[in-house]
C-alpha cells in the first residue's frame, strides 16, 4: 500500500496548516458577514452602536499587536494561544445560537450563520490540536479558555442592552476570528516554511 503522501502515514504539517487556514479564512469571512448583517438589521441610526463597544471576554488572552511582537513569541506558546483564543468561543457561540431566538425580526439567517461558524470552529479546533501535537508533543489543550460571563446580557429584557450585547459579541467574534486567521497564516510560514513563504 502506498501512503497518500510520501512523508509517511500522516497528514503533513504543511497540509494541516493549509487546511486549517482554509477554515480560519472562511470562519472570519462568516464572522464579518454576521457582524455587518446584525448591524444592518438592528442599528437604530448612525453611531448607534459606538456606545456598545466594551471589552471582549478574550481580552485576558494576551495577543501580539503586530508582526514584530508576533515574531518574539515561541512557536509552541503561539499555537497554545491560538487554541485558547478559538476555544474561548465554544461556549458563547452555543449560547448565542440558543438565545438569539429572543431577538426581534426573526433572525433565522443570523442563527444559521452562527451555527455554521460554531461547526467550523469545532472542526478547526480539532485540527489545531493535531497541529499542536506535531509542533510540540507537550502542547495539550488544558481547556484554559477565557471565561465568558455574557449569558445574562443575552437574556436582557431591555432591547437596547440586548442589542448592545449582541453587537459587542459579534464585534469581538469578528476580531478574534481575524486574529486566529492572521496568526495561522503567519505560523504556517514560520513553522511549515521555515520563516519564509
Amino acid at each position, binding site marked *: *500500500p*502506498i*501512503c*497518500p*503522501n510520501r512523508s509517511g*502515514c*500522516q*497528514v503533513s504539517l504543511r*497540509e*494541516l496548516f493549509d*487546511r486549517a487556514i*482554509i*477554515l480560519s*479564512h*472562511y470562519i472570519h469571512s462568516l464572522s464579518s458577514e454576521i457582524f455587518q448583517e446584525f448591524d444592518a438589521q438592528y442599528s437604530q441610526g448612525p453611531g448607534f452602536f459606538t456606545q456598545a463597544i466594551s471589552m471582549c471576554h478574550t481580552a485576558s488572552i494576551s495577543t501580539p499587536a503586530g508582526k514584530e511582537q508576533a515574531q518574539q513569541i515561541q512557536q509552541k506558546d503561539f499555537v497554545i494561544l491560538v487554541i485558547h483564543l478559538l476555544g474561548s468561543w465554544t461556549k458563547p457561540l452555543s449560547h448565542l445560537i440558543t438565545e438569539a431566538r429572543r431577538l426581534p425580526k426573526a433572525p433565522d439567517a443570523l442563527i444559521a450563520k452562527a451555527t455554521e461558524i460554531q461547526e*467550523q470552529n469545532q*472542526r478547526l479546533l*480539532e*485540527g489545531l490540536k*493535531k497541529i499542536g*501535537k506535531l509542533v510540540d508533543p507537550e502542547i495539550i489543550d488544558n481547556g484554559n479558555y477565557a471565561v465568558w460571563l455574557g449569558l445574562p446580557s443575552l437574556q436582557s429584557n431591555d432591547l437596547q442592552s440586548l442589542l448592545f450585547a449582541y453587537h459587542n459579541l459579534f464585534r469581538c467574534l469578528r476580531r478574534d476570528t481575524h486574529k486566529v486567521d492572521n496568526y495561522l497564516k503567519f505560523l504556517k510560514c514560520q513553522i511549515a516554511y521555515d520563516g519564509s513563504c
Partner: protein
Amino acid sequence: ESPPGKPIISKCRSPEKETFTCWWKPGTNGGLPTNYTLTYYKEGENIIYECPDYNTSGPNSCYFNKKYTNLWTIYVIRVNATNNMGSNASDPRFVDVAYIVEPNPPQNISLEVKQPEDRKPYLWIKWFPPALVDITSGWLILQYEVRLKPENAAEWEVHFAGQQTHFKILSLYPGQKYFVQARCKPDHGFWSKWSPVTSIEIPSDINMSD
C-alpha cells in the same frame, strides 16, 4: 469448503471533500456463506472502529458521512471476510479525504453565440459547479476544462478554464453544429466524468473576419 479469499478494497472516493465511500471486491467465498466487515483506525490513534454505514452507497461499500469524515488524519482501512472455516483480511488502504476527491460533473451548461459590434463573434460557454458542492467556503476549489468539436469531427478541442465557470471560443465555423462538454477537478484529486453533451448550431451568416 475453505476459508474465504482475500477481499480487495477497489476504490475510495469523495465527491465533495466532506464525505467519502470505499468499495471492495469480495474474494472467493470458499463455498460457504461469507460475511464482510470494514474496520478502520485513524493514524495517531489505536482505537479500531467499524464501518458506520454499509447501505447508503450500495453493496460491498462503506459510507462515511460528514460526522465520520475527519479532515486532519489518515484512515487505515481493512475489509475482513469471514465464514465458518476462517477469515481473511484485505491489505490496508490508507485514505486522506483531501486526496480522493472525484467530483460529479459540472451542470447546466449553456451556449450562446455572441456578436459584439467592435469585435469578432465568439461562442460563450457557461456552466455551474456540480450539485451539492459548497465552493463558497474555499474548502473545495474546482478547476474546469471544456471541450468542443464540430459534429463530424473526430477529435475534441480541449480548453482549460481555470476556476472560471465560463469560457470564450473565438475560432468558429459558420453553419456548423458543435458539441460541447465540461468537466471539473479539485486542486488535489481526480477529474470528474465529462458532463452530458450540449450542442449548438453556429448561424451561417455570422461574419468571422474583422
